């Protein structure tokens, strides 16, 4: 079920992601760490680890962190950075979020930061998370949250897809609660926070050229203002900023 184009795309972008201010910034990592509360005996799994920001944060206090991704380039970057930081409790592993190569009840903590919107089948992913969690194990998920307004949600999905063809779908808060509930997980904490992206940085991180960026901008500026203005700051024909919301949820497998 993984999309090889996603793996290739993110292998190419691994170093850009490692340097990106947005991805290394601590504001949401603080919340994830607070929700996750990894302990010295905990075996942890970070799914779609990217260049390892979340895995390294969890590894500060965890026993073992398996950093998993489907992009070999990301795994190579994560392994190199972990070695540079002397984090010998981080191991990297290739794993498809929808078919995890781990036994049932094998992790105390599973994290997944701003990646599920790339997954082709989010319910399959969450059901795999529920399977590999030990009883009373914790799942901390952060992702881009779709607006409740359907027009805004469709616009944001289309914008993400035009910037990065590997974007699948962002879920709304209500959709996330349902998916977690359906997998038998009990939601204990949540946090929504607004994020402002520097649009040129955000759009170019995926390696688009000037022509592609201009095409996205002229399309985005052409949509009805009521939809667009909720998400974009525009000056003339240039988009300066994208504003969206991130949702962080903490859930537990019942013991």
């Amino acid at each position, binding site marked *: 079920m993984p999309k090889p184009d996603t793996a290739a795309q993110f292998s190419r972008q691994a170093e850009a992601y490692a340097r990106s201010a947005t991805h290394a910034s601590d504001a949401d990592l603080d919340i994830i760490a607070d929700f996750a509360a990894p302990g010295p005996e905990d075996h942890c799994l970070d799914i779609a680890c990217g260049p390892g920001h979340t895995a390294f944060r969890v590894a500060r206090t965890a026993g073992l962190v398996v950093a998993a991704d489907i992009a070999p380039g990301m795994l190579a970057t994560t*392994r190199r950075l972990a070695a540079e930081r002397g984090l010998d409790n981080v191991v990297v*592993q290739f*794993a*498809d979020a929808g078919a995890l*190569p781990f036994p049932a009840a094998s992790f105390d903590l599973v994290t997944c930061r701003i990646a599920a919107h790339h997954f082709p089948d989010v319910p399959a992913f969450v059901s795999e998370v529920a399977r590999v969690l030990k009883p009373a194990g914790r799942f901390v998920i952060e992702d881009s949250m779709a607006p409740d307004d359907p027009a805004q949600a469709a616009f944001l999905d289309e914008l993400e897809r035009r910037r990065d063809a590997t974007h699948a779908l962002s879920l709304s808060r209500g959709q996330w609660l349902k998916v977690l509930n359906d997998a038998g997980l009990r939601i204990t904490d949540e946090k929504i926070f607004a994020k402002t992206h520097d649009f040129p940085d955000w759009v170019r991180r995926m390696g688009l050229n000037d022509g592609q960026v201009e095409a996205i901008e002229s399309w985005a500026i052409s949509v009805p203002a009521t939809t667009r203005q909720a998400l974009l700051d525009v000056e003339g024909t240039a988009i300066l900023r994208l504003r969206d919301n991130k949702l962080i949820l903490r859930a537990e497998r019942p013991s």
Partner: protein
Amino acid sequence: MTEEKSGVDPRLLEILVCPLTKEPLEYDAQAQELISRKARLAFPIRDGIPIMLADEARQLDD
């Protein structure tokens, strides 16, 4: 580092299972493969990382 690149981390070998059957795997150090007898698949190990994806695995015929 060189050792880590040429072999699989033993902490992973302990926990990895077949992504399809969720059954334990056999480690073939010589061929650098992880074998799932039930799924009849051999998963390759590249640069010390087992590639646990059915699409990337070798079909076993015996």
